[in-house]
């Protein structure tokens, strides 16, 4: 059933009920994105349909590509020509986009990629999942590279983070991924933004390929054949990654001030874990939630603040355990890190998390893993 989407506007704020997918599209439009190429795949189709309408209204460019491979290459071309460009897909389609993402990372071209994750591996299913964490945060395609990965947990953040993603992409000339899931994409929540929200300031793009009028010709490439040339380029990318790690890592914390038990979760899993924290508090457990907002760079410092003393951790994910490897690495003591995960479209329930938390806290069950 389609809910009525009445827009209200008062005190300079636009407010309406939106799906996450459509909020993401509007966030991109409001960020000055005027090029979108996509290919149908569930559960992100509302975003592609929305862009088909909105791009026309904004004199932007919408292309339904022949494949995800083509879609990301169209974004590659649009970005190289200087446009703010975006593509979106869901897990199997994102696997195909890794080709173009690697090329763009190599050529240092900005773009935004939205992954509304579904269950895998293979064709999997169309239910929400978080099983593309490794792919998103560890490179994904071939070669040494990173992209910035933002993990929204509300429809509002689908809008806000997409808007911000264009600013980050332009600031660092890097692909930025919005890592959402089928739940966030499909569900409806109130969305609110300022009626006169402005696109992030667009930096000069002296590298844009616009024709060599009054200047030397330019090329934009990821091929560096001469001896040592690619290594130098890789070092330059590493320095950029280091700078991003230093400046952009971000986490949100909930009731962690006095916590000695910290649940780590992002996106949909974090929403649920928040309620589990409240339930654990009612049982007298000093529980808190650490929710990474950026998955890469991972908010290591925020996590490290909780390592001292006896604090135990529980990582909750909609996967068989991917982010937990980062948590274990940073905490440095695997025995202190518990894990609860549901895969294949399963969604953790509040009470399941509470139950697992109590097992972790029980000395005999410390570090319990599912």
């Amino acid at each position, binding site marked *: 059933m389609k809910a009525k989407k009445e827009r209200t506007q008062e005190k300079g704020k636009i407010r309406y009920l939106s799906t996450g997918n459509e909020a993401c599209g509007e966030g991109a439009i409001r960020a000055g994105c005027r090029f979108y190429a996509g290919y149908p795949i569930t559960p992100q189709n509302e975003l592609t349909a929305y862009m088909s309408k909105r791009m026309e209204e904004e004199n932007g460019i919408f292309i339904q590509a022949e494949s995800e491979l*083509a879609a990301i*290459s169209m974004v590659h071309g649009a970005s190289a020509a200087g446009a703010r460009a975006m593509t979106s897909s869901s897990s199997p389609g994102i696997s195909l986009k890794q080709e173009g993402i690697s090329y763009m990372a190599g050529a240092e071209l900005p773009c935004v990629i939205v992954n509304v994750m579904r269950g895998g591996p293979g064709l999997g299913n169309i239910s929400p999942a978080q099983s593309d964490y490794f792919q998103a945060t560890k490179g994904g395609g071939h070669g040494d590279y990173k992209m910035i990965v933002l993990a929204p947990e509300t429809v509002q953040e689908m809008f806000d983070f997409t808007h911000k993603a264009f600013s980050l992409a332009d600031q660092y000339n890097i692909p930025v991924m919005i890592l959402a899931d089928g739940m966030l994409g499909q569900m409806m929540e109130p969305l609110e933004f300022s009626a006169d929200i402005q696109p992030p300031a667009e930096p000069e793009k002296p590298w844009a*390929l616009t024709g060599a009028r009054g200047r030397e010709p330019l090329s934009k490439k990821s091929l560096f054949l001469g001896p040592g040339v690619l290594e130098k380029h890789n070092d330059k990318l590493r320095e950029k990654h280091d700078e991003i790690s230093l400046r952009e890592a971000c986490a949100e914390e909930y009731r962690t001030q006095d916590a000695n038990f910290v649940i780590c979760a992002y996106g949909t899993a974090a929403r649920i874990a928040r309620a589990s924290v409240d339930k654990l508090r009612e049982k007298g457990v000093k529980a808190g939630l650490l929710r990474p907002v950026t998955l890469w760079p991972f908010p290591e410092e925020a996590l490290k603040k909780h390592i001292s003393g006896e604090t135990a951790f529980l990582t909750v994910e909609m996967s068989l355990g991917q982010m937990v490897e980062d948590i274990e690495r940073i905490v440095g003591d695997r025995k202190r890190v518990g894990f609860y995960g549901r895969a294949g479209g399963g969604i953790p329930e509040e009470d399941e998390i509470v139950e697992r938390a109590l097992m972790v806290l029980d000395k005999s069950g410390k570090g319990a893993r599912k």
Partner: protein
Amino acid sequence: MAGKFSRPESMTDKTTHYCPGCGHGIIHRVMCEVIDELGIREKTVAVAPVGCAVLAYDYWNFDAIEAAHGRTPALATGIKRVLPDRVVFTYQGDGDLAAIGTAEIIHAGNRGEDLSVFFVNNGVYGMTGGQMAPTTLIGQTTSTSQFTRRPDKEGYPLKILEMMALLPGVVYLERTSIHSPAEVLKTRAAIKRSFETQLAGKGFSMVEILSPCPTYWGMDPARSMERIREKVIQQYPLGVVKNN
């Protein structure tokens, strides 16, 4: 050019990496002459393929970018849609265009993108060591068709232009060759017509250029040109395939 042979402004003075007798040098040359003649050098953005011509941007004195293998027309689509008043062309080999990029070329054509495509068909993968291409002739030996290309095992040479001709969005298709000076001049004229088609905003056009690969055909440059005349044009007839 009058009377004096000089380098077109659209070419750099860099020595190419192409093998002796390779056709790319001739094709670059006539293409760059046309770009000079039309006065479009400063508004041209080229898309180089993966393959022997991957380094073409070192030899071209205008903006250029490289695409992932076969995605060349998709990437060019992105550029042209953002910059509709610029001249955008792809320069692709037979592996790039007729194998891994078959979907991209057909759909760019079917959308009627305002692009020029220069398709250099030499019947082998040159850059990777002379493997069989979709365009390799029946009976031709390559490093991956060691017992020659046989229809029952390796299939038939792919005639891309004839396939593209079926698409309403495609307005101009011509197959040319460079095996003689007269054919080189026809190639030059076809390239010019393709650019003019784009400048007039008429839609998608493509010139397939039959070109020699002496290295992986295992014959000297002169003999390679002869082979085009004797054998290759029997499979790939020259001339205008479509002109709307």
